[in-house]
């Protein structure tokens, strides 16, 4: 398959949040969040809607400025770095990316090299190499000459992945990378994420599918109403009690005989809503 994505990287990087708070429209969306991510981790951020997961990701990437606390990358506060410098280390793939115009796939991936080029600089061989590696890692090389508007949704997602990888980031932050993907592409993406983590990139993804989070990620961060409720191995973070309290559903745990990976099942509520609105 593909060679190692990052040439050699044994250096470990640290992305750290200290008592982060984020406030907008007179509301505290995030409060008192402290965590640290190092290279090679495979982290999923889970939580119900409105918990602040996307906001947390954006604060981690430096897109949003924290109202309190600070984010540091290897000890340096993100706020002190230029946008381009941050982009060389951290790549954030938002949930939705507009694709209106018919760029060729290789052009789209090539945009990921923006943080590495000066305004007047011409493309260098390093750029071509990075694009090549990114596309081979995401298995999108065959699509190189096609138009981005003409490929399928799953392929488009992979192309955007490649774009993010072309930034040669230390940390890859993803907001629901598997949403709207068919099963095959979901698996492909998860395999890619695992491989990237193994090669030394810190991967942090917001995941809605609790079963996926439990199965594929090595560390879970549970957010609830803007606060960090749990942070640790998946089995510890997602158990029957936390799921009930935070997500307000019942969960049953099973184990796959062959691999031993835990599986989640959510039975539907047996009673309909009571007249006063409470669940049965």
């Amino acid at each position, binding site marked *: 398959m593909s060679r190692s994505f990052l040439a050699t990287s044994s250096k470990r990087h640290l992305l750290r949040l200290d008592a982060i708070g984020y406030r907008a429209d007179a509301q505290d969306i995030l409060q008192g969040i402290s965590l640290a991510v190092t290279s090679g981790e495979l982290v999923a951020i889970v939580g119900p809607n409105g918990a602040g997961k996307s906001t947390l990701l954006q604060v981690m990437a*430096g897109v949003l400025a924290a109202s309190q606390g600070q984010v540091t990358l290897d000890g340096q506060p993100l706020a002190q770095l230029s946008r381009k410098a941050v982009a060389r280390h951290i790549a*954030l793939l938002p949930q939705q990316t507009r694709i*209106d115009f018919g760029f*060729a796939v290789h052009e789209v991936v090539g945009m990921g090299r923006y943080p590495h080029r000066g305004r007047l600089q011409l493309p260098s061989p390093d750029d071509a190499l990075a694009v090549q590696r990114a596309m081979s890692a995401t298995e999108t090389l065959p699509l190189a000459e096609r138009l981005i*508007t003409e490929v399928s949704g799953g392929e488009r997602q992979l192309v955007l992945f490649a774009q993010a990888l072309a930034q040669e980031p230390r940390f890859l932050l993803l907001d629901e990378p598997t949403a709207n993907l068919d099963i095959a592409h979901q698996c492909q993406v998860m395999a890619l994420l695992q491989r990237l983590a193994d090669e030394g990139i810190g991967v942090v993804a917001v995941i809605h599918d609790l079963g996926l989070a439990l199965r594929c990620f090595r560390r879970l961060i549970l957010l609830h109403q803007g606060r960090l409720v749990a942070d640790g191995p998946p089995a510890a973070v997602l158990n029957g009690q936390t799921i009930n309290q935070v997500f307000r559903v019942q969960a049953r745990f099973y184990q796959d005989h062959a691999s031993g990976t835990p599986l989640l099942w959510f039975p539907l509520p047996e009673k309909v809503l009571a007249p006063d609105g409470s669940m049965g």
Partner: protein
Amino acid sequence: MTIVKASPWLTIAVLVALLVGAGMMALALGSVSVPLQEIVTLLLHQLHVTDDGGWTSTHAAVILQVRLPRVLMAGLVGGGLALSGTVMQGIFHNPMADPGLLGVSSGAALGAVLTLHLSLATQHYLLLPALAFLGGLMAAATVYGMATSGGKTPVATLLLSGIAVSSFNVALTSFVLSISRESVLREILFWLMGGLEASTWEHVRLSAPIVLVGAAVVCLFARDLDILLYGEQRALTLGVDAQRCRHLLLFLATALTAVVVCFSGTVGFVGLVVPHMLRLLVGPGHQRLLPASFLGGATFLVLADLTARVLVRPQELRLGVITAFVGVPFFLYLLRANRRILEPL
């Protein structure tokens, strides 16, 4: 739908050749036909390359004093409008965006109409473009001011603000038109329909530096524009300072539009249709699209001005009429042939 796979340099070279060809044709044709040879020797003489005679003084006067500045202005106006339109379409993610979106055209029109109505232009003829320019900038500033709050200028608000200010300007312009007397009315209408018949070297000297420098700076931001197309969040995480970039590009597009419209009057469809035409030929990547739009727009308007002069001899049609007649059918064709481009919107 084809995208020219040729190298960017080849595309630019072809477009430059087309522009030069159109320019030569425009210099040769008109109420007085001047043979191409004479024009070439005349121009070479001006550039101190040759010393030959071979032209009549009448032809020299017509070519050098009247037609050459006019053709150059047509190129500058067409290029400026097309480039500005490309920038607008990129920033607003809207294929229907055109240079007048931020109220520049309507503001310039109001400035010009007031100047003509108050007969200020007869005091000094440069007052007309000056006040039109001022009107355009003021309108754009108002639009921007209204749409900005808390240091942020959301794109959707900018659009709506532009529509509001433009409507207001149009209302004021209509009012002035309704109280104007006959002789001025005709002049005002002609200005509103666009025309380059009063182009002088002074116009060229005033507009060329701004247009050429502005265009060059815009082209430097080609990659940023590409990335801005992918949404604000992705742009930020790719290292593009989206807000600042947009501010700068909109300022440049506004200045470009204002400086050309104040000399040519309101000329529609160039900024709307030319970017689409060129996008079909060279693709959506702005590194090629921006210079191509400029050159394509310049060629388009040079030919449109030529048509205005010679189509219904000896009358002269208004420039805006020609661009509309060409622009509208082409735009309809674009819509039909390229539905897919517009589908996501």
